[in-house]
């Protein structure tokens, strides 16, 4: 008898576990950072503003969706002069292209807490296919997503003219994200 009630209790529990879908991205607790090399020296920066919409149920990753809009003018390079330069025409040209946009196409579970997010990243009018490795962990009512990937700035014509060569600012830029989303 006891066994059966326990089993029943579990049976009723499981669907509620499955139903957890993380949708409310908490921008103030999330971060989008980047690292690049300047004359061989790693330099960090971040974006202060981004918005995102997310539907992620760990039980049904195939149905998950994610999209991101990063406000490129909110870039923080560590120096006001750098922020102005990077917002300018040669870099992001934020007047014409204010946001970088990532839209997921498919999300695959790799086992454990690891996932693979395939999608398209558009910056400055250039679109690239990306596959981004990410991890997920549930923390209380929130889901924590972490991951990083490398883009080549030249693929998006970020840094034109005198900046186009890679001797001062390297081509590779590592993007790191830490996203916290609450369940509904």
């Amino acid at each position, binding site marked *: 008898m006891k066994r059966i009630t326990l089993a029943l209790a579990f049976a009723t529990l499981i669907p509620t576990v499955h139903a957890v879908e993380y949708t409310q991205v908490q921008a103030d607790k999330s971060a989008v950072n980047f690292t690049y090399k300047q004359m061989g020296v790693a*330099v960090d920066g971040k974006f202060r503003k981004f918005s995102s919409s997310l539907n992620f149920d760990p039980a049904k990753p195939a149905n998950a969706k994610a999209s991101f809009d990063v406000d490129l003018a909110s870039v923080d390079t560590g120096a006001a002069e750098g922020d102005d330069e990077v917002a300018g025409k040669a870099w992001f040209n934020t007047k014409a292209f204010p946001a970088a946009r990532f839209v997921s196409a498919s999300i695959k579970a790799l086992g454990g807490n690891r996932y693979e997010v395939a999608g398209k990243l558009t910056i400055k009018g250039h679109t690239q296919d990306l596959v981004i490795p990410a991890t997920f962990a549930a923390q209380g009512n929130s889901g924590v997503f972490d991951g990083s990937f490398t883009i080549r700035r030249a693929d998006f014509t970020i840094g034109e003219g005198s900046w186009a060569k890679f001797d001062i600012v390297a081509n590779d830029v590592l993007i790191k994200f830490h996203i916290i989303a609450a369940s509904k």
Partner: protein
Amino acid sequence: MKATVTTHYTATAKLLHWLMAALLFGLLALGFYMHDLPLSPDKLKLFSWHKWAGVSAFLLLGVRLLWRLTHRPPALPEAMPKVMRFAAHAGHLMLYLLMIAIPLSGWLMSSAKGFQTVYFGILPIPDLLDKNKELGDLLALVHKSLNLLFITVLAGHIGAALKHHFIDKDDILTRMAPRHSKENRA
């Protein structure tokens, strides 16, 4: 009175003095010049060169201090009044302190601004400070102010050397000049 009175600086002391003089004038000029440039790849390159040259000046100063502590410089002229002797020693002490403080402030500023110093792009010099914008700006002001003070003390240093040479007509300037020791050994 001891009999070990030397009349000239050692060749090593002279070499270090003039090498650092050239390097420091270059650093001062480059520092002010690059600071006012609009951001460009060249500016970033000059910043790196300035940092490398600044670290080199600091290392040379270490050698120079070791030499100074193990080799007594020639005595000041007997005729020099007490106040002047004091001014000379105080001035030299200031120069040494500034030659220590300026590169240190530059290094700490770079760390606080989030740009690590990597000597010649090869040897990373650890960041003692974490990235902190306010602190970085403050240290930039400290670096600049120390440099302005340095220029003031240098003006006094050069002015004093010229006064010794042209007005007092003593050997203060020539005994630091490259060929002085040979002439005097005769």
